[in-house]
Each structure stands twice: as structure tokens, then as C-alpha cells.
């Protein structure tokens, strides 16, 4: 049986949703970001903005330098997540083997179902039309014998394209394909390869598997196989157990204010703990990530006998790690993650542990019924007490918030 993998990638997803919500934004450069009154980055740029060089992850001043007419729109993550759910439920009409790859991407194994829809091209067009009719959004579809090639195919025809790669055309396609088009080869690696004079997958293939393994270890094997267009990975409908649970946060302003950083770290620890409790996980390794205002990033981790899903405990461990950093510049981003997760929950030995477990259960239940952060530790309020400086960039004048960024205090 011919293996046919289909990759669906929504085009400039968040920006396109905003352009659907507000028709006056259509055809204009839109940047979806966090609250524009605070320091934030571009989460998604419309194609009109991308054409002027704006990319996701850029800081707002950097993006506005490239695209001064850009319209900043604060993101609406709930709307995007719900719209994704609608898109994925539409995709599940075409196969029972659907892997949700990210909020705006999915792989479908359509090997058994594509003949039912009149062939590969007809199926691709039908999927695009179904999504467009239901949501008004466009997507790019790639079809190929494996996931790697399907993803490459979709990326080659963005936006709103459909590309089918047949097995027989793979060698020719890969020989001329720029290395940065391969998922897994980022700008840094592409630049390193470019320094060696390697710019296409064909040149990478000619280096040989053994050389790449010697130079890059196991990653070298991936590089060689990717350069040849090989990929045996299956489409996995059920997400595997996560390797780690983490949260990070770009601060609204760069700071070295210890109390503020402490309260942010505490909130992140509580968020990680709440997610661990949802899946009944314990962990063993705590990692703290720190990015300074010059974008230098530090990551440190420590292994413990057990990391329970208790925000206070995770915070204490994370704060120990954080305190080992010497802050020479203001902090831009903080992150915590817990890894080496295990579903085996040790029974509480001491009465205080049992009391805290009951407390978590009650708080989680209240928040589940009445909404996130209906009940939260008072320490969170400290974070809101430090006010960010107001940016002076003219583009921020687009925005006025009557109740901006208000803290929900339980009544």
C-alpha cells in the first residue's frame, strides 16, 4: 500500500484569525503580540507584514522598524485554541490517524482514505475548502510519502497552496532544496553549514552519513536522512506522555527587582504544579531558564529525590537554582520546567502533606468549576504591584485598554 502523509499548516494563523474577526485588517500588515502596553514580541505576523521582513519572535520595536505601518493586535489565545479545535475536528473527518503537531499544524495518515475522496489532489483541495468554508481561514497542504517531506511540501507552497511530492521526484527535489527548508535545521546550523559551503541538501548528502555522525553525533544521522528525504516516523494520534512540564514568561519590562522576579517565579511554579496535578505526575529534575535583556540565555537544572506537584515546593527548589545565577544585567524572561516525570504518586507520610494535598484538590476543583485563577495565592498580587514603564513608541498609541490587564481578585 502506498504511504501518503498529509501535512496541514494554517497560514499566519493568529494574524489570519484576527483578520477574520475584524475585516478592516484584511490586506493590511497585522502583528499579533501580547499586551502592546508592555514589552512583548511578535507571536504571529500576517503575510503583508512578512513580506516586509517581519518574523515571529521579533521584538516589537524591531518589527516596527521593518514595517512602520503594522497594526498591533493583542492576541486572544482562547479564540485561537478553540478555532484549532474546530479545524482538527474537521480534519478528523478525513482519516482516523491524525496527529496534532502544534496549535496550527497537523499530520494525517491518509494512505487508506485518499482513494475515497477521488485521489490525492482532490483530497487536498477538499480539506482546504472545508476549512475555508467553516472558518474563513486558509491553510497550506503538503502530501508526500513521509512526514518530513509532507511538511517540506506544505512550506514550499505557503500561503494557501497545495503540493504533492511523489516518491520518484524525491531525489531531484532534495538535491536542490536549501538546507534551511528542512525542519530541524535552524538558522544557526544552516549558518554553520553555509560556512562549510553547504547550502543545499544535495551537498549535505555528499558529505556522507559517517562524516556527519562523526561531526554531529546522533544528530548527524538525522541530518543525512533528512537531506535524503528519509523519515520513517509514524503519524501518532495520541500524544505521548510529556517529557517535561514547563512554563516561561517574557517579563513586561526588563528588571532585576528581586521581589518581582521572585513572585513571577512563584506564579510559574504554581502553574507547573497545577499541570502536574492534572496528570498526577511527580518529577525529579527542576530546570530554571533565564534570559537577560541582551538575549543571552542561561539554563540550569538540578536533580532531586522527588519533586511533588506542589507550587511552593517547586518554587523553593527553583529559587535555590535561580539564586546560583549572578545577575549582571536585567532579566527579560524567566522559565521553570520539571522533567523526569513519573505517574507513580508517593503516598503522603506526614499530616501536613495530606493537608496540603486536600488544599490543592479543593483549589483545583474551584478553579475548574468557576474558571482559572478564581482562587490563587496572594503572592501573585505582588507581581501586579510593580508597574511597567509606559512605552513611548507611536505605534502603541493604537491601543487603549479600559480595563487593561486587570487582576481578578476573588470576591
Amino acid at each position: 500500500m502506498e504511504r501518503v502523509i498529509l501535512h496541514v499548516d494554517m497560514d499566519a494563523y493568529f494574524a489570519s484569525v484576527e483578520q477574520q474577526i475584524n475585516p478592516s485588517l484584511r490586506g493590511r500588515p497585522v502583528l499579533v503580540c501580547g499586551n502592546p502596553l508592555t514589552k512583548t514580541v511578535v507571536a504571529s505576523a500576517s503575510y503583508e507584514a512578512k513580506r516586509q521582513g517581519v518574523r515571529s519572535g521579533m521584538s516589537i520595536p524591531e518589527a516596527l522598524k521593518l514595517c512602520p505601518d503594522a497594526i498591533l493586535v493583542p492576541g486572544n489565545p482562547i479564540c485561537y485554541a478553540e478555532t484549532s479545535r474546530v479545524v482538527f475536528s474537521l480534519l478528523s473527518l478525513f482519516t482516523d490517524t491524525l496527529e496534532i503537531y502544534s496549535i496550527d499544524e497537523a499530520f494525517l495518515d491518509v494512505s487508506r482514505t485518499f482513494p475515497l475522496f477521488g485521489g490525492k489532489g482532490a483530497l487536498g483541495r477538499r480539506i482546504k475548502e472545508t476549512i475555508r468554508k467553516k472558518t474563513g481561514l486558509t491553510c497550506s497542504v503538503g502530501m508526500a510519502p513521509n512526514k518530513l517531506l509532507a511538511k517540506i511540501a506544505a512550506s514550499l507552497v505557503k500561503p494557501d497552496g497545495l503540493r504533492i511530492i511523489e516518491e520518484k521526484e524525491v531525489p531531484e527535489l532534495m538535491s536542490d532544496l536549501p538546507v534551511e527548508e528542512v525542519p530541524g535545521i535552524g538558522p544557526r546550523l544552516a549558518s554553520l553549514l553555509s560556512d562549510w559551503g553547504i547550502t543545499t541538501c544535495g551537498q549535505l548528502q555528499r558529505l556522507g552519513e559517517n562524516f556527519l555522525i562523526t561531526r554531529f553525533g546522533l544528530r548527524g544521522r538525522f541530518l543525512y536522512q533528512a537531506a535524503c528525504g528519509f523519515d520513517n516516523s509514524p503519524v501518532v494520534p495520541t500524544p505521548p506522555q510529556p517529557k517535561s512540564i514547563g512554563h516561561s514568561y517574557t517579563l513586561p519590562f526588563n528588571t532585576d527587582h528581586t521581589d518581582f522576579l521572585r513572585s513571577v517565579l512563584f506564579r510559574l511554579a504554581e502553574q507547573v504544579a497545577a499541570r502536574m496535578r492534572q496528570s498526577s505526575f511527580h518529577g525529579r529534575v527542576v530546570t530554571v531558564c533565564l534570559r537577560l535583556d541582551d538575549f543571552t540565555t542561561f539554563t540550569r537544572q538540578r536533580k532531586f529525590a522527588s519533586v511533588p506537584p506542589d507550587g511552593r515546593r517547586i518554587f523553593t527548589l527553583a529559587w535555590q537554582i535561580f539564586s546560583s545565577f549572578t545577575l549582571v544585567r536585567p532579566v527579560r524572561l524567566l522559565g521553570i520546567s520539571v522533567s523526569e516525570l513519573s505517574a507513580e504518586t508517593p503516598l503522603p507520610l506526614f499530616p501536613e502533606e495530606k493537608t496540603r494535598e486536600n488544599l490543592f484538590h479543593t483549589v483545583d476543583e474551584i478553579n475548574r468549576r468557576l474558571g482559572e485563577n478564581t482562587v490563587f495565592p496572594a503572592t501573585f498580587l505582588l507581581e501586579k504591584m510593580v508597574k511597567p514603564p509606559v512605552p513611548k513608541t507611536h505605534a502603541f498609541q493604537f491601543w487603549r485598554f479600559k480595563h487593561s490587564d486587570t487582576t481578578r481578585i476573588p470576591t
Partner: protein
Amino acid sequence: MITEINEPIKVATIFTQGKVKICWFIWKGKRRDAVNTTFFWKSYRGEKRIYHFALSNGQEVFEISFCPEDLSWYLDRVHLK
């Protein structure tokens, strides 16, 4: 410009065959016609399901939400040109 409002409003709506057609709503004592619904999504506030609608009158876009549990309508945000 987007302005956060979060105020209760009165809405004239036709519920028919599982679909919702919003005709107009009253905000600040003034009737605003909904020429078309540009987008629709759902969310949860705790266990409560909330239905969100983006309505355009050609000039402005209004994001309104409906909670079937307490039959309340809210004007969430206004996008001004």
C-alpha cells in the same frame, strides 16, 4: 484601536435550527445593528460555556459573548477603525 468594555448589553437575536442570528444590540442606550457575524468561537469560564461572536457594522467590530447558563450577553471589546 481595541477597547475592552466588559459590560452587560441587551441583544435581539433569532435562534433558529441550531444557529444564532444576532440582529442588533443596545449599548449605552444606543441601538447598534449587526450587519454580519465575522467570526464565532466558544470558551469556558470554569464549567460555564461561553459563546463569542464578532459582529461588524461596516465601521466597527463588536465582540460580544453569550452565556446560556444565565442567559446573559456581554459586550467584551470594540474594534474601532
